[in-house]
């Protein structure tokens, strides 16, 4: 996807320090993602990948201690999670929750209409919503009966991840964060999920793909790859960096000596 210096900066992270609970996890992250770009953040367990995604969506319990994050020029710290979502930030969760008693289709329509109302558009009625829903469900190969079931209740790991991608397709965010979306997927499910993600690639949209392994990046090819270690970006490069990491593991970067821009 061509992205040049003239495209809009969707997210700008500047010297971000953050805690998970009382524990400092991020120690100065700088990252800029422009419209049309896909960035991958890779790193070993405990490097701060999930803290970064939780900070971006405003999960309670995660706190910015210094630095800032700007979303299209607006300070994220001043926005509630639901406002961030309506402004166009979306996180596909690593562990999607099950919510017994709340039907998937009802939830999706409520969420879609919250977005539309925020953008000053008319709410979709049941019929129009259903048309749209069916179209997007085909893309992630979800059977229709899953829509009348409760959110993620009794879904397999793969079904939960597809459901996340379905939500992303319906909500049409400007900035998509995919947190270990590939974990626990077999190769077919991985391909389906990757197709869904690739559907979302566009010149207006930015993506941050957080992953431990390189295999998702075979399907969703990033423009930039960053390696996170101990709360810092220790190396950045292009997709070749991901391949190198897959061969060598993370050990050679852990001391920070290999860091460069």
């Amino acid at each position, binding site marked *: 996807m061509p992205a040049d210096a003239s495209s809009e900066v969707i997210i700008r992270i500047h010297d971000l320090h953050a805690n998970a609970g009382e524990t400092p996890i991020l120690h100065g992250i700088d990252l800029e993602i422009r419209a049309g770009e896909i960035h991958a953040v890779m790193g070993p367990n405990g490097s701060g990948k999930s803290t970064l995604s939780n900070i971006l*969506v*405003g*999960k*309670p319990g995660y706190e910015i201690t210094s630095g800032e994050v700007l979303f299209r020029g607006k300070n994220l710290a001043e926005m*509630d*999670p*639901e406002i*961030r*979502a*309506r402004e166009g930030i979306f*996180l596909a*969760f690593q562990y*999607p*929750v099950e*919510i*017994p*008693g*709340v039907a998937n289709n009802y*939830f999706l329509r*409520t*969420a879609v209409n*919250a*977005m539309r109302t*925020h953008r000053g558009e008319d709410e979709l009625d049941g019929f129009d919503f259903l048309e749209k829903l069916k179209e997007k469900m085909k893309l992630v190969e979800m059977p229709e009966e899953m829509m009348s079931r*409760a959110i993620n209740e009794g879904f397999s790991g793969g079904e939960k991840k597809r459901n996340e991608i379905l*939500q992303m397709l319906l*909500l049409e965010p400007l900035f998509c964060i995919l947190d270990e979306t590939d974990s626990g997927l077999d190769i077919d499910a991985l391909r389906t999920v990757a197709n869904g993600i690739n559907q979302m690639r566009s010149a207006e949209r930015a993506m941050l793909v957080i992953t431990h392994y390189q295999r998702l990046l075979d399907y969703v090819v990033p423009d930039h790859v960053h390696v996170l270690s101990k709360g810092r970006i220790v190396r950045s490069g292009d997709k070749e960096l991901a391949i190198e990491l897959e061969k060598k593991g993370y050990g050679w970067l852990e001391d920070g000596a290999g860091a460069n821009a």
Partner: protein
Amino acid sequence: MSSDLQSLTRLSPDRIPVAPSDRSDQIHTDPNWLATLRRDALACFEEQGLPTRRQEEWKGTNLAPLAAMEFTRVGASPNFSIPMQEDVGLGPLLVFVDGAFDPAASRREKLPAGVRASSLAEVLRDEPESIKGYLGALTDPKIQPLVALQTAFLSDGAVLVLDPGTTAPHPIRLRFISTGDAGDSSAGTSAAFPRLLVIAGEGSSLALVQEHISSDDAPGLTAYVSEFHLAAGARVECLEVQAEAAARVHFTSLHARLEENATFDSHVITVADGLVRSEILVELVEPNAATKLCGLFMGQKTAHLDHFTTVDHAAVNCTSDEEYRGVLANESKGVFRGRVIVRPGAQGTDTKQSNPNLLLSDRAMIDTKPQLEIYADDIRASHGSTIGQLDSDALFFLRARGIDEAEAKRLLTGAFAHGVVARIQNEELRWVATTQVDATLTQLEKSESERPK
């Protein structure tokens, strides 16, 4: 001998010399057995007095608000005129005002042959012998003082009789309205004593709605006792909605006796703002009887909602499945006691019980305790209660999809409450319950959002 509620007991039919012109057809045609039943019950109440928290069964509930009431009458205020009854169901609707049948407000649909829905007063006047041996047969006034009190005033209510093999095609609906003072404070504090007797013949089938509402928020007492006799293979599903006003004390005591293969499903929805005590005793006396006891209590303001249930497994291969859920806002308090008795020889018993509770406020309280008394060895029994707030991960997930916090809370609270309503089999019953629960959820949310921060 107790002096509790003297202002009330002196009003009992037994004490008041009745002018024949006044209460013409009732008292004077009462058969001897009924007069005896009432007199003995009054004596039982006066012997025991009101229950106190020193008694195990009443540990969670203080009846001081009832003890403090000065009663001036039993039955409706003379000023009260009944408003038009909203009526959307298909089956018969029997309306009772302060315990007395109101034919004008009722709609007595034609029922299939063998199914009868009558007022108790009518039955006592026309064919009292038909219910002799049933009325009062499942209750024990000697150990339940408030049941004794109710029995002492027993005069009207509903009698539902299903001959063997018959089915009521639509739910029969009973609406009990307490009138308070009808805006006239000189009308004083009133008590109402409606009664229900169900005789379900072999293989018969009934769905039943009982609603308790009040027309204003004047203090008073409603004491309601219901008895369900289920012959072999009979199936009864009933919904009881308790929605009386805050100043009123509501007591309800249900007694069911199940013969072989009978099925009794009870759904209790308690949304009253005041003091409620709801008791259920189900006796499984013959093999393969099954009961499902579901309940939802939703408290707001200073409501005190006490549910005390007992399932008595006295025969082999019976099942009981109980789930009561509590949703408590503001300073409301819930009490749940689930007693299960498995008698010696009741092998093959399968009993389940759960009581999950959702506290919407840090000032709301729940007091919950299962009580299993098991004297047989070849059985399956499970129980559990939980107390919690809304799941914070679920709440965050919904917000991260753009749904605002209040709406997300409403969705999750609604899902929790409706989870138990979904267990109602009969569609009309489920519709009544759903409508009530939705309305109450809206009130709960309002009263929580109005609380001082």
